[in-house]
């Protein structure tokens, strides 16, 4: 069965919604966008699409090759699409969790997190090196089960379209029942935040239930406004650097690491791991933050501090 690529059809809507969000930012808080950041994000997205076109054939061929060994023959009835969507979303959760916990996968995924802004253009800030990082491996079990590759790639496209609208600060909270099951702007703001509380949390694509089931869920708190970006922000809008900086970091570390075990660990251990413990991982960052909380120490705050003012950037409070 020939299925369309839903993402291609959604692109005009993406463009219009980004423009609409810019108008909201102009009216409410101009810090939500920055022209150079937007340019970088959108250029990365276009580059990602081009990379996908270049490597898509190989990925599809591999999928078809695996599918021939399928355990079951799954048909094209609509309910199989629903099942495929749910299972593909779980596969996405597993991939996404690995993309934050294994440096080799992180090197490709970090691009998406490297903006210090959180808006709809950030949703389009996608990797150029997904094929190199072998991200497609996580879908192979679905083909082995018996889901036709065309079906999986179609539902994966729908999954990606869903994830576009959650990259915004315009929406505060959705209704409680929705927040309980689905990934939402609030849940995904947590995921993009570098606050110690929020690091490596909320990996969901569409259904937040995977995080709740597997212990990686953290709700957004109004008293801990998300700060976006990566632990060591780039400080640069350079397009190529955004795309390759972590790969360069891996190469440097592997080259200088003592011993083969450390060289391998610099590729497969969690981001921030170092053979001499000199760098921070999300675990050490969280641990130091917890320690400060337990000791009752407060972050730098004085009565005259501008940080005591209301954060105009913060997402609006619960609406329903």
């Amino acid at each position, binding site marked *: 069965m020939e299925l369309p690529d839903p993402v291609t059809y959604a692109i005009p809507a993406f463009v219009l919604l980004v423009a609409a969000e810019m108008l909201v930012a*102009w009216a409410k808080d101009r*810090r939500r966008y920055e022209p150079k*950041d937007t340019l970088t994000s959108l250029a990365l997205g276009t580059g990602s699409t081009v990379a996908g076109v270049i490597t898509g054939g190989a990925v599809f061929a591999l999928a078809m090759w695996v599918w021939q060994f399928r355990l079951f023959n799954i048909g094209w009835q609509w309910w199989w699409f629903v099942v495929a969507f749910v299972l593909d979303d779980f596969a996405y959760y597993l991939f996404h969790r690995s993309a934050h916990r294994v440096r080799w996968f992180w090197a490709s995924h970090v691009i998406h997190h490297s903006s210090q802004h959180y808006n709809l253009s950030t949703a389009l800030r996608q990797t150029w090196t997904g094929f190199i990082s072998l991200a497609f491996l996580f879908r192979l079990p679905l083909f082995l089960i018996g889901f036709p590759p065309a079906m999986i790639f179609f539902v994966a496209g729908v999954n990606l379209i869903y994830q576009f609208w959650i990259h915004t600060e315009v929406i505060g909270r959705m209704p409680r029942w929705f927040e309980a099951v689905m990934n939402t702007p609030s849940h995904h703001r947590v995921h993009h935040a570098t606050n110690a509380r929020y690091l490596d949390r909320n990996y969901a694509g569409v259904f937040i239930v995977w995080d709740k089931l597997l212990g990686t869920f953290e709700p957004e708190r109004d008293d801990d406004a998300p700060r976006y970006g990566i632990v*060591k*922000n780039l*400080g640069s809008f350079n397009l190529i650097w955004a795309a390759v900086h972590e790969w360069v970091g891996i190469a440097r570390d592997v080259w200088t690491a003592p011993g083969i075990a450390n060289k391998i660990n610099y590729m497969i251990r969690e981001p921030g791991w170092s053979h001499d413990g000199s760098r921070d991982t999300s675990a050490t960052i969280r641990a130091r933050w917890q320690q400060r909380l337990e000791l009752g120490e407060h972050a730098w705050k004085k009565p005259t501090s501008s940080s005591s003012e209301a954060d105009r950037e913060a997402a609006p409070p619960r609406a329903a």
Partner: protein
Amino acid sequence: MTWLQLAGSLAAILILAGLAWLLKLGRAGHEGTIDEPDQAAEAAEQSLAGFRTIGALVGDDRAAALVAGEHGRVAVIKRHGARLAVREVRWEQVRATHEGMLVETGDRRFGAVTVTGINVLDVRRLAPSLTSV
């Protein structure tokens, strides 16, 4: 993706980035400036695990700051669009120039940062334990 789609995408990118520029998003006023030392201190503590601020110096142009922390730690903050970007450095990377204190971050893309209008005396007051900057 056809060539037409690629051309359309590139056009859309330029239009959207242009719209952001026309609307003066991220650059209309004080976006990304460092208005006072507390703001720099907060940025350093939020970005660097375990960093405890002793004091901070903000440049005259409010585009950069130097934050001294306990145990000899030091961070440089710079304006990055409408946000602030932070790097932890060593005091050896900080030196005086006629414009202010120049911080060679060692990160070519992050760039060197000049905290304008502050001098060695300001730094010594910030971090009295320093014997040389």
